[in-house]
């Protein structure tokens, strides 16, 4: 509750900052101060299970250890994102305060989407996440690619919202209890009524749109490519993970008892996502576009949690939140400093910027899932969840094979950095300042520490 209300309030404060403060650097400090206070208040809520606000919410939101830990983790990742990318956000345009305001509103939406207990709150949460993102995507107003990405994202997003609402309506019509509360929709394990199964299908399609799972991924590469790189970094990590969290929460509480009836569909979606994400990423020349496809491939792994829906899957989801967000924020942070976004642009980076190249290598290794990094632990937990689930064991083998394929395109960047000579394009015109490098090293250190002691994150679930 603290996170929802405080981040909405702080969003409004940031909007006023945009009006009254002329300096371009001040909003960053106000945003960081606000985020620290929101983070500490939500950690307080996690520890004491007590909110600062007494609000009659009619059980529409439900707070437990798992989703409070998730909110705290998301806020921590956002704090790291702000600290790393503060200077880049200032470069996007004139209205720095507003960008921060929109990010705070998104955080409020994420907190709703992570704690919802009725389909109404699911809808509201997803929309509060989506609408500011349309604006952030198009925030580079003079750039045609940014415009195009915003329009495409908006039309696709509104379309999928319509589909999700139709699904919610069907579920409401089909449930005998006439309720939107997700734990009262279906009682028992029998055959689903036809209206509920149609509604389930619609919601599954709409949520797959939001988390960019194949075959509903086609907007993703274009939007991620066109949006300003800093905001691509935000929406491909924190927002996407929040979408998965809502996905898992809905399917666990509302349809968990009928898992055998929809698990096959999730299996097909997972396999297609892994296939399309990994295979298409191999052929990309632009690193930004390759990371867009890699985020589709990682979404395939996160879908394993929806597939399994057991305790291991939840642990894996928390780990994946940390591992995937940190590594992708880091690699996008490096990418924003590059002049040339093609893989050749990384040639010889190790000689010019040894620290940046080393940390980028750690991020890429973590995304691949090499042992001793957080990425390995998170993938391991996901696979273990799928094995423990017991059905369709072959999905694990397929997932491991695709993880091996992903090594090819991640290692191509490492190879370019270390084993190729620099060309003129590699020269970085923007000066790299010391705090940026320290932040990169901090993220790399966190990835390695989580890789060795995953209990640091998992323990948050059980307290």
């Amino acid at each position: 509750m603290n996170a929802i209300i405080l981040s909405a309030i702080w969003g409004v404060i940031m909007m006023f900052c945009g009006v009254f403060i002329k300096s371009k650097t001040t909003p960053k400090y106000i945003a960081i101060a606000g985020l620290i206070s929101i983070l500490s208040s939500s950690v307080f809520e996690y520890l004491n299970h007590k909110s600062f606000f007494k609000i009659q919410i009619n059980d529409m939101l439900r707070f437990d250890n798992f989703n409070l830990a998730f909110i705290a983790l998301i806020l921590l990742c956002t704090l790291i994102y702000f600290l790393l990318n503060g200077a880049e956000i200032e470069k996007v345009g004139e209205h720095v305060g507003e960008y921060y305001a929109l990010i705070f509103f998104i955080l409020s939406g994420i907190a709703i989407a992570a704690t919802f207990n009725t389909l109404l709150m699911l809808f509201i949460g997803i929309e509060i996440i989506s609408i500011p993102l349309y604006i952030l995507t198009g925030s580079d107003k003079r750039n045609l690619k940014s415009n195009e990405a915003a329009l495409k994202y908006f039309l696709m997003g509104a379309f999928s919202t319509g589909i999700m609402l139709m699904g919610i309506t069907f579920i409401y019509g089909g449930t005998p209890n006439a309720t939107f509360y997700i734990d009262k929709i279906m009682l028992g394990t029998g055959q689903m009524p036809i209206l509920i199964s149609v509604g389930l299908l619609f919601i599954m399609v709409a949520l797959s749109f939001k988390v960019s799972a194949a075959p509903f991924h086609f907007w993703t590469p274009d939007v991620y490519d066109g949006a300003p790189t800093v905001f691509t970094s935000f929406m491909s990590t924190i927002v996407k993970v929040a979408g998965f969290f809502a996905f898992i929460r809905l399917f666990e509480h509302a349809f968990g008892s009928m898992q055998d009836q929809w698990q096959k569909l999730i299996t097909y979606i997972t396999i297609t996502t892994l296939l399309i994400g990994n295979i298409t990423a191999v052929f990309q020349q632009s690193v930004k576009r390759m990371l867009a496809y890699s985020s589709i491939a990682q979404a395939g792994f996160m879908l394993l949690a929806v597939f399994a829906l057991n305790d291991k899957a939840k642990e894996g989801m928390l780990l994946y939140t940390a591992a995937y967000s940190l590594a992708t924020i880091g690699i996008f942070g490096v990418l924003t400093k590059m002049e040339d976004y093609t893989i050749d642009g990384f040639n010889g980076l190790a000689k010019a910027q040894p620290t940046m190249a080393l940390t980028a290598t750690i991020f890429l290794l973590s995304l691949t899932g090499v042992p001793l990094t957080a990425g390995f632990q998170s993938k391991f937990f996901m696979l273990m969840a799928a094995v423990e689930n017991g059905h369709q064991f072959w999905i694990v083998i397929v997932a491991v094979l695709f993880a091996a394929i992903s090594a090819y395109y991640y290692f191509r960047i490492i190879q370019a950095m270390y084993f190729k000579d620099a060309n003129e394009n590699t020269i970085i015109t923007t000066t790299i300042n010391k705090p940026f490098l320290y932040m990169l090293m901090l993220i790399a250190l966190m990835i390695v520490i989580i890789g060795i002691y995953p209990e640091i994150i998992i323990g948050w679930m059980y307290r």
Partner: protein
Amino acid sequence: MDIKAYIILSLVLFTIGIVGVLVRRNAIIIFMCVELMLNAVNLLLVAFSKMHAMSTAAKASANFASDAQIFVFFIMVVAAAEVSVGLAIIVMMYRNVHTVDVNFLNRLKN
């Protein structure tokens, strides 16, 4: 009246919306089709609410029928927010390329 009639009517509206989104090339028309989809949902929600209110089984819960009608208001509010953002994006697009044809959106392909 039978609930089937409402279901069929709103499914027809919804399908017109989906086909419009997939077939039409004008951004504004696509946008109108999305709104049509949302309104089909609103109609069906109200119909289902009435259906549940008339059945006896649902009377156990306290506010058994009004939930869906309140949901409709939320959909209207969110749709209005979406319109404001969406039209702003379309206007921004129009200022730069002087067209609202989505066939123009092919710069990102290569």
